């Protein structure tokens, strides 16, 4: 920011979103219309020092006397019908960011004005929208269409506009009018700390005018040297320009050709050059790319974008280039250069920190790295849904104890069971899904099957071990039956994994199943 006085009078529009969190919530739930009269009040709560407190409220909640800062329990006691939603300031900020981009249509000089506000330098822009009144109407209309309630004020400095929007009635103030309006504002408009604010009110100095009328030196002696400056700003005696918002530049590398190119080897070479430069830039910032987007701009104005993703952040040019080649080879609609590309662009929409790895002195560590590269290549070629691997899952139930997940997804914290290397395997290599019913002859109550018939073949059991008893997961379904698993070997030396579902004496009668084969 700079505080140089401007050459010609400037005009600022402050936009304040008093109900941003609840408006955002309603938008999210796609109920743009006003809530019905009897809808329960909505509050957004967050945990502060172990207690749930209100972070924001909607108008209905405010009408019910609920204010931000109130403990949720107290709020609940006052209106039991309350609807409580988790406070998501990140989503609020994201929405405000989108509004900011959209309001960029009014002026490029636009900035966030936290909390929950925007400030627009509309000097010289108003005529495009039918004058200042027309501009304000348009802003109001756009906000309403987005389901957001706003209060805005147009004045000669950003500070006055902000103060009038938030602490005053809002509206348009001609140059010269705004100072008088600001003088009527409460001292809260100075946005001092609560203590100072209270001190001013205790002193009987309740409006900005009360302060303005008094000599400034004694005030500075009491409320700090910068107090008169602050007052001057809010009264519009001093202007502070805004620093316009610009979206952060992602890593983007462009090549513009005088002669359009179309030969595949040319395209590949340019891709390679672009990647080298991109990786250099990433290296300088200590980042690695998780996704790379190649943009192909045809002379006729058509654009084609190809994205590759990697399982871990990378700055490896050959590997990434290979991913592009594989991806391009596997494209359903091949890359068509038409009359040639006149521009190619490499951008990295997704980056992650990638610390430079210490190279081993003795030898490269194989395994993880190479495996991950393979997974990347397969995924690039076949798509993420096609390359899967097993992941352990927290359950005793055999068919739930492992599940398939896309190989590129990082695995969770769960680990495979740690088995005693001296013991024989307790789980078969092959498991049937679903288990297949068998007829058995078994000892009661929990003996192993002496004989069983599976796929019409009768197997006589010679050896068996068990039971391994696994109870149902009561929290998932109340009546899951307990299973007794047996490892058995028949006369021919074939080994099976059988289980009895249910215990003897229960109704319905227990049933037997084969669940897998050991060998």
């Amino acid at each position, binding site marked *: 920011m700079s505080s140089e006085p401007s050459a010609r009078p400037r005009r600022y529009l402050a936009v304040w979103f008093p109900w941003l969190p609840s408006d955002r919530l309603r938008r999210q739930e796609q109920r743009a219309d006003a809530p019905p009269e009897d809808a329960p009040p909505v509050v957004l709560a967050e945990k*502060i020092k172990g207690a*749930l407190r209100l972070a924001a409220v909607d108008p209905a909640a405010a009408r019910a006397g609920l204010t931000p*800062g109130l403990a949720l329990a107290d709020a609940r006691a006052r209106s039991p019908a309350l609807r409580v939603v988790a406070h998501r300031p990140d989503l609020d900020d994201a929405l405000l960011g989108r509004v900011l981009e959209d309001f960029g249509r009014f002026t490029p000089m636009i900035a966030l004005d936290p909390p929950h506000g925007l400030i627009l330098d509309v000097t010289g822009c108003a005529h495009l929208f039918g004058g200042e009144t027309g501009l304000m109407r348009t802003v109001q209309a756009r906000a309403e269409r987005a389901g957001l309630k706003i209060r805005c004020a147009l004045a000669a400095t950003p500070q006055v506009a902000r103060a009038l929007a938030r602490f005053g009635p809002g509206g348009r103030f001609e140059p010269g009018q705004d100072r008088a309006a600001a003088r009527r504002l409460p001292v809260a408009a100075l946005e001092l700390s609560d203590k100072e604010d209270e001190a001013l009110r205790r002193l*009987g100095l309740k409006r900005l005018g009360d302060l303005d009328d008094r000599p400034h030196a004694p005030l500075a002696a009491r409320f700090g040297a910068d107090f008169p400056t602050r007052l001057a700003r809010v009264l519009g005696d001093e202007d502070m320009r805004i620093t316009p918002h610009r979206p952060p530049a992602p890593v983007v590398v462009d090549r513009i050709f005088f002669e359009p190119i179309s030969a595949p080897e040319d395209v590949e070479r340019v891709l390679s050059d672009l990647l080298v430069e991109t990786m250099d830039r990433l290296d300088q910032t200590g980042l690695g790319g998780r996704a790379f987007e190649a943009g192909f701009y045809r002379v006729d104005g058509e654009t084609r974008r190809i994205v590759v993703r990697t399982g871990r952040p990378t700055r490896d040019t050959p590997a990434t280039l290979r991913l592009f080649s594989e991806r391009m080879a596997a494209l359903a609609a091949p890359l068509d250069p038409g009359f040639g590309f006149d521009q190619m662009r490499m951008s990295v929409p997704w980056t992650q920190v990638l610390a430079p790895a210490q190279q081993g002195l003795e030898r490269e560590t194989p395994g993880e790295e190479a495996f991950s590269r393979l997974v990347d290549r397969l995924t690039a070629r076949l798509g993420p849904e096609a390359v899967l691997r097993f992941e352990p899952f927290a359950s005793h139930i055999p068919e739930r104890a492992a599940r398939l997940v896309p190989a590129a997804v990082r695995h969770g914290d769960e680990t495979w069971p740690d088995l005693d290397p001296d013991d024989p395997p307790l789980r078969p290599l092959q498991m049937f899904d679903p288990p297949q019913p068998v007829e058995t002859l078994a000892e009661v109550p929990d003996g192993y099957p002496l004989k069983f018939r599976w796929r019409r073949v009768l197997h006589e059991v010679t050896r068996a071990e068990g039971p391994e008893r696994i109870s149902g997961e009561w929290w998932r379904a109340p009546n899951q039956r307990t299973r007794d698993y047996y490892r058995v070997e028949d006369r021919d030396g074939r080994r099976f994994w059988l289980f009895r579902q249910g215990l003897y004496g229960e109704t319905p009668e227990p049933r037997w199943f084969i669940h897998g084969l050991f060998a």
Partner: protein
Amino acid sequence: MRRLDPCGAYAELATASNFSFLRGASHPKDLVLTAIQRGHAGLGLADRNTVAGVVRAWSALKEIRVEGLAPPDRMRDGGSPGEIAFIEDPLNDPALSEEVKRRAADFRLLTGTRLVFNDGTPDVIAYPETRAGWGRLTRLLTLGNRRARKGECEIGLRDLLADPEELMLILVPPNRLTGLEEVLLRMTEAAPGAVWLGAALHRRGDDRRRLARLKAMAERVDVRLLALNDILYATPDDRDLQDVLTCIREGATIETTGRRLEANAERWLKPEDEMARLFKDAPEAVAETTAFLSRATFDLSNLKYEYPEEPVPPEWEPQSWLEELVRRRTLVRYPDGAPPKVATLLNRELEFIAERSLAPYFLTIHDIVRTAENKGILCQGRGSAANSAVCYVLGITSVDPARHDLLFERFLSSNRDEPPDIDVDFEHERREEIIQYVYDRYGRHRAGIAATVIRYRPRSAIREVGKVLGLTEDVTARLASTQWGSWGSEISGRQIEQAGLDAANPMVDRAVRMATRLLDFPRHLSQHVGGFVLTQGRLDETVPIGNAAMPDRTFIEWDKDDIDALGLMKVDVLALGMLTCIRKAFDLMKAHSGVEHDLASVPPEEAEVYDMLCRGQSIGVFQVESRAQINMLPRLKPREFYDLVIQVAIVRPGPIQGDMVHPYLRRRNGVEKVHYPPPGRLYGPPDELKQVLHRTLGVPLFQEQAMKVAMVAARFTDAEANGLRKAMGTFRGDGTLHTYEDRMVGRMIARGYDPDFARRCFEQIKGFGSYGFPESHAASFARLVYVSSWIKHRHPAAFACALLNSQPMGFYAPAQIVREAQEVGGVEVRAIDVSHSDWDNSLEGPEKVPILRLGLRQIDGFKEDWAKALSAARAAAPFADVETLARRAELPAAAMRKLADADAFRSLGQDRRQALWAVRRLPDDDPLPLFAAAEARERGARELGAEPDAHLPLMPLGEHVAADYQTARLSLKAHPMAILRPVFAAERVLTCAETEAKRGGSLVQVAGVVLVRQRPGKGNAVFVTLEDETGITNVVLWARMLDQYRREIMGARLMQIEGLVEKSPEGVVHVVARHVIDRSAELSRLSEDHETNVQLARADIIAHPQPPRHPPHRHPRDVRILPGSRDFH
């Protein structure tokens, strides 16, 4: 009906109760009962590195041997002594009780611990073989506890093997058997012949293979194999609860805990035949369990108690020394000699004490009380033994037996098995001195603080279960908040719906059912507030000692009930705020008016003191200052000490729910005739019941009386009365109470009582239920009621001053205390002022009629150090102006601002606003030393610098009052309602005084500041007390209005009520509300500039939203003009 398993020869020796915190899923007593029902020969209870649960199991077994039923659960159900609910054990089956009793006779309970090592060694279960072994075990645990943080225990195998004599050790094999043999070898070397190898088969698939390997290993090392089931719960049904406990322990939800849960439900107390079948490859392992049982001879009853010797001088026997002390002290208490009645009583009590060898107990208490006396700390004993003439003479209590004879029978008639019971309350600010004295006198190795078992209460249970079952935080918070007040321990469907949740929702329903099962489970041990155990020998050879969270505090693993059950001596050193207040009042009276008093010397039975109480003017008085008590006072009209005993006891859930209050009041006020029906002429004296009930006009108000009625009128034996007491408390659904009813009513009729009367007697006892306020506690409390009332009446300024200086305590805010002093005591109260106030509130002015000067402690956030500095600087010379004050007292800017905010500069000619303006000019903070000189120069310069007059607007009265409330929570300038009166008067809203004067039945509008909102007992009504400049109004809101006016009731600080005036014959006025309006917004008028421009439209928050001014975590008090009232939630 439950089946009893055949009786056999197996005993489970690896049992975890729920004192293996968050692991075991059954109460110790349930394990014992289940083991007996299963026909086991015994049970070994071994929790993880603790013996905290063994006494429960042991006393349960004792009870089962007598009753055939496990004892009921005791749950605290209120804040005062005796407010306890008994919950029947669901495992009990009266139909089987005879068989259970028979089996229990031979049942053996081993008490030991499961040692979980920190060095990777597999767990070892240790049982003491003898008393010496027990001492070794507890010392081992003490060693581990003292090394670790609170709640943990660090022991290695080396610690165990250093001295394992007379311990029996069972090695529990882990999942992998690799390396187990080496451990076994080391153990057999250190403890030959006392090591067993445990084997537990949990159907993991490889059970037989595993058993064979263990058997082979046992043979190689030459130890015996012992069958275990390593159980976590009594019955397989409890597996889900155990899963939930595991999740709580792991801090994970049930969905993600997965393999950390047990795979199956096998770890329960299996019947003998099932165990035999499991171990059919090694039947000797099952047989070994009973051999193990018979080898261990130790039983907790071996813990023979020896009283400490300190209080007895050498060459004296405890009894003779007690008699000598009583003789000497009698002359002090009764300078003219003890009245004959007291002398007789003393002799009888001393005989009784001798008979039960209780002299050392009395001497120890006396020793502690004497120490307090020497240090000038007030104390007062209570409890059955405290109400004895001996205790009065020894100065343990100040309730004089010469005046209140009948109370004192209680001690002599107490049950022979009951341990003596004396709790001593000390001034709460100085109790720590007494605790340190006890530690010093007996040493830490002989004195320990008892534990308190922290248990799952409804809130904590639902919160943790909800988390485990994956309910959102919001839903669990909502379920947890369904409790109104602290009554009741079950979460009912109605309460769930009240929270806006669907009780039929399976998730919520499951969470609530699971939480209900978790209720009362121990969560961890904490130290008791002041219960000491003293021993003659080493305490750590009786019970393990562990570290408390407070530094230098240690506590034992057993709680008060355990200590009682074992008959160890405990001394309760408790804290009582009112004693601090009384001490401060005595000190003030002495310093200002030269009147000297102690608890016993306060003149008894002054009629004017009772007059004051009868008017309901009891704000600040001990125990009788709650709204309910204040309303009761004019009805009960206490005229003598015993009336106060009743007053204290009657406003309790017991008498209220048992509907004793109205019959008593009717009889007392002569509306109903007092009548004691006689038995038949042949069967006893016609006034036999009169002796029991005449003090309470024939209505049993104390639990003791209920028992007495049964014993006298129905000739119940001691044992029968005990049974009745239990049956009464637990509402056994099985008809136990019914049998007592038949017995009692039948016998009364047989003895010639009117059948109708007999039935009513029993109904009364039934209604009395489980709540009973013991008369002995009530009596000690009543004395403090009288003393505090006396001070309040005779020395109102000193009383208010002491009460303010003892805050926080009692029921009311400073504003009400000050107002009561002004209006009831006629005390002049002066505002906080830098030229007169010290930290504490103080007395000034004439000796006879002191004036109360408010102290700096009343200013929110003011520090004691600042006040000391201010007083010291003022003592040198009075202050001339704000700047010299700041300089001489060296107060920081923050302190000066608080003084100015509190309007404390009036004596220097500056009102709040001027002072604030002046104070704000002072430099901001303490300068660094380097800049101090420059700063001093600057200050000097500033002193000289003249400023133009700021022409600050004059602060209106309303704003002054609002600021007074914000800074000191009270205002001497005016009541906020007085300033708002024009607004309300224009609306024809009455003052409290006008409402009081209305006739019963009138429809009124009344408004006031909300003082208290309460929802007592079953919660059919909410009581709100409103206050304005003329007095108070009590409002009754029926529960059905609560839903409609919830927001107003919960949120309003200024409330307007439309309702009907209701007047009781005693002149107690209530307004029964019909409409409630929240007028809190009017309070903002106080601090607005324009009172003249009173408009009724309120600022509409919706039309004109304002950015939230306050960070969300700000204390609500700071933004309120009035402090919040006392709430019921």
